[in-house]
Protein backbone atom coordinates (compact mmCIF):
# COMPACT_ATOMS: atom_id res chain seq x y z
CA UNK A 1 0.00 0.00 0.00
CA UNK A 2 1.38 3.40 -0.87
CA UNK A 3 1.22 6.24 1.60
CA UNK A 4 -2.20 7.20 2.96
CA UNK A 5 -2.64 10.28 5.11
CA UNK A 6 -5.71 10.84 7.22
CA UNK A 7 -6.71 13.83 9.31
CA UNK A 8 -9.42 12.97 11.80
CA UNK A 9 -10.98 15.83 13.72
CA UNK A 10 -13.73 16.25 16.26
CA UNK A 11 -14.67 17.83 19.54
CA UNK A 12 -12.68 16.94 22.64
CA UNK A 13 -14.39 13.95 24.23
CA UNK A 14 -15.64 12.45 20.96
CA UNK A 15 -12.88 9.88 21.09
CA UNK A 16 -11.01 10.96 17.98
CA UNK A 17 -7.62 10.17 19.51
CA UNK A 18 -8.75 6.70 20.59
CA UNK A 19 -9.79 5.90 17.04
CA UNK A 20 -6.38 6.98 15.80
CA UNK A 21 -4.68 4.88 18.44
CA UNK A 22 -6.67 1.75 17.65
CA UNK A 23 -6.27 2.09 13.89
CA UNK A 24 -2.53 2.63 14.04
CA UNK A 25 -2.12 -0.17 16.54
CA UNK A 26 -3.97 -2.44 14.11
CA UNK A 27 -1.78 -1.32 11.23
CA UNK A 28 1.34 -1.88 13.31
CA UNK A 29 0.15 -5.39 14.14
CA UNK A 30 -0.23 -6.00 10.41
CA UNK A 31 3.41 -5.01 9.95
CA UNK A 32 2.67 -1.77 8.19
CA UNK A 33 4.62 1.40 8.74
CA UNK A 34 2.45 3.85 10.56
CA UNK A 35 2.75 7.15 12.40
CA UNK A 36 0.18 8.90 14.47
CA UNK A 37 0.53 12.33 15.98
CA UNK A 38 -2.14 13.96 18.11
CA UNK A 39 -2.55 17.69 18.16
CA UNK A 40 -1.83 18.79 21.67
CA UNK A 41 -1.83 22.55 21.86
CA UNK A 42 -3.63 24.63 24.43
CA UNK A 43 -6.67 23.91 22.31
CA UNK A 44 -7.20 20.77 24.35
CA UNK A 45 -9.31 22.91 26.60
CA UNK A 46 -12.57 23.14 24.72
CA UNK A 47 -11.10 23.03 21.22
CA UNK A 48 -11.11 20.81 18.17
CA UNK A 49 -9.06 17.65 18.58
CA UNK A 50 -7.19 16.44 15.51
CA UNK A 51 -5.27 13.23 14.86
CA UNK A 52 -2.77 13.09 12.01
CA UNK A 53 -2.34 9.51 10.86
CA UNK A 54 -0.19 7.99 8.13
CA UNK A 55 -0.02 4.43 6.82
CA UNK A 56 2.47 3.04 4.35
CA UNK A 57 4.45 -0.02 3.35
CA UNK A 58 7.60 2.11 3.29
CA UNK A 59 9.37 4.21 5.88
CA UNK A 60 7.30 7.32 6.56
CA UNK A 61 8.93 10.76 6.38
CA UNK A 62 7.68 13.88 8.11
CA UNK A 63 5.17 13.16 10.88
CA UNK A 64 2.86 15.97 9.87
CA UNK A 65 1.39 16.81 6.50
CA UNK A 66 -0.30 19.76 4.82
CA UNK A 67 -2.76 17.89 2.64
CA UNK A 68 -4.53 14.67 3.52
CA UNK A 69 -5.87 11.89 1.36
CA UNK A 70 -8.86 11.65 3.65
CA UNK A 71 -10.21 14.27 6.04
CA UNK A 72 -12.92 13.29 8.48
CA UNK A 73 -14.61 16.12 10.36
CA UNK A 74 -16.96 15.17 13.13
CA UNK A 75 -18.38 18.51 14.21
CA UNK A 76 -19.30 21.82 12.70
CA UNK A 77 -16.20 23.46 14.09
CA UNK A 78 -14.04 20.57 12.91
CA UNK A 79 -15.17 21.16 9.33
CA UNK A 80 -13.87 24.73 9.37
CA UNK A 81 -10.74 23.72 11.22
CA UNK A 82 -9.75 20.98 8.77
CA UNK A 83 -10.88 22.35 5.42
CA UNK A 84 -7.32 23.54 4.83
CA UNK A 85 -6.02 19.97 4.79
CA UNK A 86 -8.05 19.25 1.69
CA UNK A 87 -6.89 19.62 -1.89
CA UNK A 88 -8.01 18.28 -5.27
CA UNK A 89 -6.98 14.73 -4.25
CA UNK A 90 -8.76 14.67 -0.91
CA UNK A 91 -11.80 12.73 0.10
CA UNK A 92 -13.55 15.00 2.59
CA UNK A 93 -16.03 13.34 4.92
CA UNK A 94 -18.28 15.03 7.44
CA UNK A 95 -21.07 13.94 9.68
CA UNK A 96 -24.53 14.83 8.44
CA UNK A 97 -25.84 15.20 11.99
CA UNK A 98 -24.38 18.66 12.59
CA UNK A 99 -25.44 22.08 11.46
CA UNK A 100 -22.71 24.24 10.10
CA UNK A 101 -22.03 26.91 7.58
CA UNK A 102 -21.67 25.11 4.25
CA UNK A 103 -19.17 27.77 3.26
CA UNK A 104 -16.76 26.19 5.70
CA UNK A 105 -16.49 23.13 3.45
CA UNK A 106 -13.19 22.95 1.58
CA UNK A 107 -12.80 24.84 -1.67
CA UNK A 108 -10.95 21.90 -3.15
CA UNK A 109 -11.69 18.23 -2.75
CA UNK A 110 -11.88 15.17 -4.90
CA UNK A 111 -15.16 14.30 -3.25
CA UNK A 112 -17.18 15.58 -0.34
CA UNK A 113 -19.47 13.10 1.34
CA UNK A 114 -21.68 13.13 4.41
CA UNK A 115 -22.29 10.12 6.64
CA UNK A 116 -24.97 9.82 9.33
CA UNK A 117 -22.75 8.46 12.13
CA UNK A 118 -24.07 10.59 14.97
CA UNK A 119 -27.70 9.85 14.18
CA UNK A 120 -26.98 6.17 13.75
CA UNK A 121 -25.14 6.03 17.06
CA UNK A 122 -27.89 7.85 18.90
CA UNK A 123 -30.85 6.05 17.34
CA UNK A 124 -29.67 2.54 16.57
CA UNK A 125 -26.76 1.83 18.92
CA UNK A 126 -25.47 4.01 21.74
CA UNK A 127 -24.01 7.54 21.69
CA UNK A 128 -20.83 6.17 23.23
CA UNK A 129 -19.90 4.09 20.19
CA UNK A 130 -20.06 7.04 17.85
CA UNK A 131 -16.30 7.03 17.47
CA UNK A 132 -16.25 3.31 16.73
CA UNK A 133 -18.72 3.84 13.90
CA UNK A 134 -16.28 6.39 12.58
CA UNK A 135 -13.47 3.90 12.90
CA UNK A 136 -15.46 1.43 10.84
CA UNK A 137 -16.10 4.18 8.33
CA UNK A 138 -12.40 4.92 7.99
CA UNK A 139 -11.80 1.27 7.17
CA UNK A 140 -14.69 1.27 4.71
CA UNK A 141 -13.33 4.36 3.01
CA UNK A 142 -9.67 3.49 2.87
CA UNK A 143 -9.01 -0.16 3.68
CA UNK A 144 -5.95 0.98 5.62
CA UNK A 145 -6.27 -2.01 7.91
CA UNK A 146 -8.19 -5.25 7.75
CA UNK A 147 -11.41 -5.49 9.64
CA UNK A 148 -9.99 -8.35 11.68
CA UNK A 149 -6.90 -6.43 12.74
CA UNK A 150 -9.05 -3.50 13.78
CA UNK A 151 -11.26 -5.81 15.82
CA UNK A 152 -8.25 -7.24 17.58
CA UNK A 153 -6.81 -3.82 18.36
CA UNK A 154 -10.19 -2.68 19.62
CA UNK A 155 -10.43 -5.76 21.81
CA UNK A 156 -6.95 -5.02 23.14
CA UNK A 157 -7.74 -1.41 23.91
CA UNK A 158 -11.12 -2.02 25.53
CA UNK A 159 -10.42 -5.40 27.14
CA UNK A 160 -10.95 -4.03 30.65
CA UNK A 161 -14.37 -2.66 29.69
CA UNK A 162 -15.41 -5.80 27.86
CA UNK A 163 -14.48 -7.82 30.89
CA UNK A 164 -16.83 -5.84 33.08
CA UNK A 165 -19.64 -5.87 30.55
CA UNK A 166 -19.31 -8.44 27.74
CA UNK A 167 -22.32 -7.00 25.88
CA UNK A 168 -20.14 -4.00 25.07
CA UNK A 169 -18.03 -6.18 22.80
CA UNK A 170 -20.96 -6.96 20.51
CA UNK A 171 -22.04 -3.34 20.57
CA UNK A 172 -18.61 -2.10 19.55
CA UNK A 173 -18.11 -4.69 16.83
CA UNK A 174 -21.53 -3.92 15.48
CA UNK A 175 -20.76 -0.21 15.46
CA UNK A 176 -17.63 -0.90 13.45
CA UNK A 177 -19.52 -3.05 10.98
CA UNK A 178 -22.23 -0.42 10.55
CA UNK A 179 -19.64 2.29 10.08
CA UNK A 180 -17.88 0.29 7.42
CA UNK A 181 -21.08 -0.37 5.52
CA UNK A 182 -22.13 3.24 5.86
CA UNK A 183 -18.89 4.38 4.27
CA UNK A 184 -19.01 1.85 1.48
CA UNK A 185 -22.55 2.84 0.71
CA UNK A 186 -21.81 6.52 0.61
CA UNK A 187 -18.86 5.94 -1.70
CA UNK A 188 -21.13 3.86 -3.91
CA UNK A 189 -23.76 6.57 -3.97
CA UNK A 190 -21.16 9.06 -4.98
CA UNK A 191 -20.16 6.88 -7.89
CA UNK A 192 -23.79 6.54 -8.90
CA UNK A 193 -24.32 10.26 -8.68
CA UNK A 194 -21.33 10.88 -10.81
CA UNK A 195 -22.67 8.68 -13.58
Amino acid at each position, binding site marked *: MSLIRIALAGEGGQGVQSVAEILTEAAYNENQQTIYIPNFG*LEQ*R*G*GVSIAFIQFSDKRIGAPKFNKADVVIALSGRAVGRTAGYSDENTLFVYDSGFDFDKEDLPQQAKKIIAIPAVDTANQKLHPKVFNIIIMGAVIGLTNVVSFEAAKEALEHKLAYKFEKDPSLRELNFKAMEIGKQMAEKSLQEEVDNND
Partner: protein
Amino acid sequence: MEMLAPATPKSWYLPSKPHKFCPGCGHGITLKALGEAIDELGIQQETIFGCDIGCSLLAWNFFACDSTQTHHGRTTPVMVGIKRARPELITIGYMGDGGGYSIGSQHLLNSAVRNEKVTLILVNNTNYGMTGGQMAPTTLPGQITETSPYGRDPESTGYPTRGPEFIAELTPEGAYVARATVSKYKQLRRLIRNAIRNQIEGNGFSFVEVLSTCPTNWRTNANQTWNFLEEKMEQYFPVGEIKSPLGKGDK
Protein backbone atom coordinates in the same frame (compact mmCIF):
# COMPACT_ATOMS: atom_id res chain seq x y z
CA MET B 1 -23.29 25.43 46.74
CA GLU B 2 -24.70 28.92 46.79
CA MET B 3 -26.31 30.39 43.70
CA LEU B 4 -24.05 32.33 41.38
CA ALA B 5 -25.11 35.90 40.71
CA PRO B 6 -26.50 35.81 37.17
CA ALA B 7 -25.31 39.18 35.87
CA THR B 8 -22.05 39.45 33.96
CA PRO B 9 -19.47 41.62 35.74
CA LYS B 10 -18.89 44.94 34.04
CA SER B 11 -15.14 44.41 34.15
CA TRP B 12 -15.32 41.24 32.02
CA TYR B 13 -14.08 41.49 28.46
CA LEU B 14 -17.03 40.15 26.49
CA PRO B 15 -15.29 39.22 23.20
CA SER B 16 -13.34 36.58 25.15
CA LYS B 17 -16.54 34.93 26.38
CA PRO B 18 -17.57 32.17 26.62
CA HIS B 19 -14.36 31.40 28.46
CA LYS B 20 -12.16 28.42 27.64
CA PHE B 21 -11.97 26.58 30.96
CA CYS B 22 -13.28 23.02 31.09
CA PRO B 23 -16.88 22.53 32.21
CA GLY B 24 -17.00 22.41 36.01
CA CYS B 25 -13.65 24.16 36.46
CA GLY B 26 -13.27 26.46 39.46
CA HIS B 27 -11.17 29.02 37.60
CA GLY B 28 -14.31 30.48 36.01
CA ILE B 29 -16.02 30.91 39.39
CA THR B 30 -12.96 32.55 40.90
CA LEU B 31 -12.67 34.97 38.01
CA LYS B 32 -16.33 35.81 38.30
CA ALA B 33 -15.82 36.69 41.95
CA LEU B 34 -12.77 38.75 41.03
CA GLY B 35 -14.74 40.55 38.32
CA GLU B 36 -17.48 41.44 40.77
CA ALA B 37 -14.95 42.61 43.34
CA ILE B 38 -13.34 44.87 40.74
CA ASP B 39 -16.78 46.26 39.88
CA GLU B 40 -17.75 46.85 43.50
CA LEU B 41 -14.52 48.69 44.22
CA GLY B 42 -14.81 50.63 40.96
CA ILE B 43 -11.17 50.03 40.01
CA GLN B 44 -11.44 48.65 36.48
CA GLN B 45 -9.47 51.57 35.02
CA GLU B 46 -6.46 51.34 37.32
CA THR B 47 -6.29 47.56 37.65
CA ILE B 48 -3.44 45.65 36.07
CA PHE B 49 -4.23 41.96 35.83
CA GLY B 50 -1.32 39.55 35.49
CA CYS B 51 -1.66 35.83 34.92
CA ASP B 52 0.73 32.94 35.25
CA ILE B 53 1.35 30.06 32.86
CA GLY B 54 -0.98 27.32 34.02
CA CYS B 55 -4.68 27.14 33.29
CA SER B 56 -4.67 30.69 34.62
CA LEU B 57 -3.08 31.70 31.29
CA LEU B 58 -6.49 31.22 29.70
CA ALA B 59 -7.51 34.39 31.59
CA TRP B 60 -5.05 36.60 29.70
CA ASN B 61 -7.87 38.48 27.97
CA PHE B 62 -10.60 37.68 30.47
CA PHE B 63 -11.05 41.21 31.85
CA ALA B 64 -11.55 44.60 30.26
CA CYS B 65 -8.55 45.69 32.30
CA ASP B 66 -4.98 46.11 31.11
CA SER B 67 -3.50 42.66 31.45
CA THR B 68 -0.27 40.77 30.96
CA GLN B 69 0.69 37.16 30.74
CA THR B 70 3.93 36.31 32.52
CA HIS B 71 5.92 33.10 32.85
CA HIS B 72 5.19 29.99 34.84
CA GLY B 73 5.86 31.00 38.45
CA ARG B 74 6.93 34.55 37.64
CA THR B 75 3.70 36.50 38.02
CA THR B 76 4.65 37.69 41.49
CA PRO B 77 7.86 39.50 40.49
CA VAL B 78 6.23 40.98 37.38
CA MET B 79 3.44 42.40 39.56
CA VAL B 80 5.98 43.69 42.06
CA GLY B 81 7.86 45.41 39.25
CA ILE B 82 4.73 47.12 38.00
CA LYS B 83 3.68 48.21 41.50
CA ARG B 84 7.13 49.53 42.41
CA ALA B 85 7.25 51.49 39.16
CA ARG B 86 3.68 52.83 39.33
CA PRO B 87 2.29 52.63 42.88
CA GLU B 88 -0.99 54.24 41.78
CA LEU B 89 -1.89 51.12 39.77
CA ILE B 90 -3.65 48.20 41.41
CA THR B 91 -1.84 45.00 40.59
CA ILE B 92 -3.64 41.69 40.78
CA GLY B 93 -1.59 38.56 40.13
CA TYR B 94 -3.41 35.33 39.28
CA MET B 95 -1.66 31.97 39.47
CA GLY B 96 -1.99 28.25 40.14
CA ASP B 97 -0.70 26.25 43.09
CA GLY B 98 2.17 24.91 40.99
CA GLY B 99 3.10 28.37 39.78
CA GLY B 100 2.84 29.93 43.24
CA TYR B 101 3.99 27.26 45.68
CA SER B 102 6.47 25.36 43.56
CA ILE B 103 8.41 27.08 40.82
CA GLY B 104 7.49 30.56 42.05
CA SER B 105 7.80 29.88 45.77
CA GLN B 106 10.96 31.95 46.22
CA HIS B 107 9.17 34.97 44.76
CA LEU B 108 6.11 34.43 46.91
CA LEU B 109 8.23 34.05 50.01
CA ASN B 110 10.44 37.05 49.40
CA SER B 111 7.72 39.42 48.27
CA ALA B 112 5.74 38.43 51.37
CA VAL B 113 8.74 39.14 53.58
CA ARG B 114 9.19 42.53 51.88
CA ASN B 115 5.48 43.17 52.35
CA GLU B 116 5.07 44.16 48.70
CA LYS B 117 1.83 46.05 48.11
CA VAL B 118 0.40 43.65 45.57
CA THR B 119 -2.64 41.37 45.58
CA LEU B 120 -2.12 37.74 44.63
CA ILE B 121 -4.84 35.19 44.01
CA LEU B 122 -3.66 31.59 43.94
CA VAL B 123 -5.92 28.82 42.68
CA ASN B 124 -5.38 25.54 44.53
CA ASN B 125 -6.70 22.61 42.50
CA THR B 126 -4.29 20.07 44.02
CA ASN B 127 -2.52 19.44 40.73
CA TYR B 128 -0.85 20.85 37.64
CA GLY B 129 -3.92 21.33 35.50
CA MET B 130 -2.53 22.77 32.31
CA THR B 131 0.16 20.13 31.83
CA GLY B 132 -2.23 17.24 32.27
CA GLY B 133 -2.51 16.53 35.98
CA GLN B 134 0.85 16.01 37.65
CA MET B 135 1.49 16.21 41.38
CA ALA B 136 1.48 19.71 42.87
CA PRO B 137 2.73 20.86 46.29
CA THR B 138 -0.94 20.81 47.34
CA THR B 139 -1.72 17.26 46.18
CA LEU B 140 -3.34 15.44 49.10
CA PRO B 141 -1.73 12.39 50.70
CA GLY B 142 -2.66 9.28 48.74
CA GLN B 143 -4.03 11.31 45.84
CA ILE B 144 -3.29 9.79 42.44
CA THR B 145 -1.81 12.07 39.80
CA GLU B 146 0.22 11.48 36.66
CA THR B 147 3.48 11.71 38.61
CA SER B 148 2.18 10.02 41.74
CA PRO B 149 0.51 7.10 39.95
CA TYR B 150 0.49 5.01 43.10
CA GLY B 151 -0.82 7.87 45.26
CA ARG B 152 1.14 10.71 46.88
CA ASP B 153 3.43 9.28 49.52
CA PRO B 154 4.25 11.91 52.19
CA GLU B 155 7.25 9.80 53.21
CA SER B 156 9.06 10.63 49.98
CA THR B 157 7.28 13.78 48.81
CA GLY B 158 6.23 15.53 52.01
CA TYR B 159 2.83 16.81 53.07
CA PRO B 160 0.70 19.29 51.12
CA THR B 161 1.79 22.92 51.36
CA ARG B 162 -0.47 25.11 53.48
CA GLY B 163 0.35 28.35 51.73
CA PRO B 164 -1.66 31.02 53.57
CA GLU B 165 -0.52 29.66 56.93
CA PHE B 166 3.11 29.98 55.96
CA ILE B 167 2.70 33.37 54.33
CA ALA B 168 0.94 34.63 57.47
CA GLU B 169 4.05 33.69 59.44
CA LEU B 170 6.34 35.57 57.05
CA THR B 171 4.46 38.84 56.75
CA PRO B 172 4.29 41.85 59.07
CA GLU B 173 1.03 43.24 60.47
CA GLY B 174 -0.25 45.09 57.41
CA ALA B 175 -0.56 41.96 55.32
CA TYR B 176 -3.85 40.33 54.40
CA VAL B 177 -3.93 36.53 54.13
CA ALA B 178 -6.96 34.32 53.57
CA ARG B 179 -8.19 31.07 52.09
CA ALA B 180 -11.48 30.86 50.20
CA THR B 181 -13.25 28.14 48.26
CA VAL B 182 -15.33 28.15 45.10
CA SER B 183 -17.99 26.25 47.03
CA LYS B 184 -18.75 29.35 49.14
CA TYR B 185 -19.18 32.03 46.55
CA LYS B 186 -20.14 35.02 48.69
CA GLN B 187 -17.27 34.48 51.05
CA LEU B 188 -14.93 34.01 48.08
CA ARG B 189 -15.97 37.34 46.64
CA ARG B 190 -15.67 39.08 50.00
CA LEU B 191 -12.18 37.77 50.72
CA ILE B 192 -10.96 38.72 47.25
CA ARG B 193 -12.46 42.17 47.70
CA ASN B 194 -10.72 42.51 51.06
CA ALA B 195 -7.41 41.48 49.53
CA ILE B 196 -7.74 44.22 46.93
CA ARG B 197 -8.92 46.79 49.48
CA ASN B 198 -5.87 46.05 51.55
CA GLN B 199 -3.67 46.98 48.60
CA ILE B 200 -5.69 50.12 47.91
CA GLU B 201 -5.26 51.17 51.54
CA GLY B 202 -1.55 50.59 51.16
CA ASN B 203 -1.34 48.23 54.14
CA GLY B 204 0.80 45.53 52.62
CA PHE B 205 1.02 42.17 50.93
CA SER B 206 -2.39 40.67 50.15
CA PHE B 207 -2.86 37.02 49.40
CA VAL B 208 -5.89 34.77 48.85
CA GLU B 209 -5.67 31.07 48.13
CA VAL B 210 -8.81 29.73 46.46
CA LEU B 211 -9.72 26.06 46.76
CA SER B 212 -10.87 25.08 43.31
CA THR B 213 -11.94 22.18 41.12
CA CYS B 214 -10.28 20.38 38.22
CA PRO B 215 -12.73 17.69 37.07
CA THR B 216 -10.70 17.07 33.92
CA ASN B 217 -7.58 15.87 35.67
CA TRP B 218 -9.32 14.53 38.77
CA ARG B 219 -11.44 12.48 36.35
CA THR B 220 -14.49 13.12 38.46
CA ASN B 221 -18.15 13.66 37.64
CA ALA B 222 -20.01 16.66 39.05
CA ASN B 223 -20.87 14.94 42.32
CA GLN B 224 -17.44 13.50 42.93
CA THR B 225 -15.90 16.86 42.10
CA TRP B 226 -17.87 18.73 44.76
CA ASN B 227 -17.35 15.98 47.28
CA PHE B 228 -13.61 16.11 46.82
CA LEU B 229 -13.64 19.88 47.20
CA GLU B 230 -15.95 20.11 50.17
CA GLU B 231 -14.94 17.01 52.05
CA LYS B 232 -11.29 16.29 51.28
CA MET B 233 -9.83 19.66 50.43
CA GLU B 234 -11.70 21.89 52.85
CA GLN B 235 -10.79 19.52 55.62
CA TYR B 236 -7.08 19.70 54.93
CA PHE B 237 -7.08 23.38 53.97
CA PRO B 238 -9.25 25.37 56.44
CA VAL B 239 -11.13 28.24 54.86
CA GLY B 240 -11.31 31.79 56.23
CA GLU B 241 -9.29 34.92 56.97
CA ILE B 242 -5.97 34.18 58.62
CA LYS B 243 -4.66 37.69 58.88
CA SER B 244 -6.45 40.99 58.26
CA PRO B 245 -5.54 44.56 59.12
CA LEU B 246 -8.95 45.69 57.85
CA GLY B 247 -11.36 46.90 60.48
CA LYS B 248 -13.67 44.33 62.08
CA GLY B 249 -16.53 46.34 60.61
CA ASP B 250 -16.18 44.55 57.29
CA LYS B 251 -18.86 41.94 56.87
